[in-house]
């Protein structure tokens, strides 16, 4: 792998990791919201 390719790999890994982190955060919030909605409906 050339240094240029290595740089592209790092850049893509970084952006993919950031997207996954953001989606995980959104998923946690969504599960929290669903739980609250379900509890409210149950009561």
């Amino acid at each position, binding site marked *: *792998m050339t240094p240029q*390719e290595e740089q592209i*790999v790092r850049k*893509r890994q970084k952006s993919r990791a950031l*997207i996954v982190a953001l989606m995980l955060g959104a998923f946690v919030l*969504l599960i929290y*919201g*669903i739980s609250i*909605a379900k509890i*409210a409906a149950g009561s």
Partner: protein
Amino acid sequence: MIMASNVATTPNILPADWRDFLALTKPSVMRLVVFTGLCGMLVAPGGINPVLGFTAILCIALAAGASGALNQWYEADIDALMKRTEKRPLPAGRMDRQSALHFGVGLSFFSVLLMGFATNWFAAVMLAGSILFYVIIYTMWLKPRTPQNIVIGGAAGAFPPLIGWIAATGHVAPLPVLLFLIIFLWTPPHFWALALWVRPDYAAAGIPMLPVVAGERTTRRQIFLYSIPMAAAAIAPWAMGLTGNLYGVTAAVLTAWFLYLAAKVGIRTAVEDDGMKPEKRLFAFSILYLFLLFGILLADHWMMAL
């Protein structure tokens, strides 16, 4: 199936960019899926908690994305042979097939399970059914075998309003079935209008689309003929007393214009280098038609509730 040299079958050295994963989900197709699903959910009686409603629509969107990804995984070789699709992540060599398959399968399971936990398992089963229908029945079975592929395969795109309704209510009723029928019958004229001007692409890829197999004249006739039951389905919700006059009048006007454009395409014979304008106009209007029809359905529902 012809193998294209640039479709990577083994993992690439370079990991795919996240934008390529997004492109796998066919975001442009997703807009109509999300909108019709949302309308189906919002016209359902009883209403749904906004968070659960948002989750249901998210699941419909994710399932559509998963279907798109699995479709591109399976058709990467064919996509490489068509101008319209050659720049997609797989045929362009920006992603390996295995990544697309893992992404599609993972997204499918995620969307179905989330739908089941957030709303009800009937909606989740229907969602799973819509993914399997699109990937197995349409993409793998019908599309490479019969010119009627889009007629039966159209059902895959017709599921969203039905699933939206089921997510909100947990059961099926006549109105969402009619909404399903409208999209189901709308798909052939919509898709064949496109197929008329990308026919050389389909012929090169060996896909038996109607214009390739039966010729242009038959396709034009079929476009108009399928528009007639579609028109009946579009008017039916009003005729059956399931919607108000706002929907009835607007649907009649919009559908009359659709029929006019379909008739123009149906009776004409294309000459070389004429730009296929009537076909492109019908294709463009058919998308607007579905957006407007479902939008008016929603507006009518809210007016009736006042």
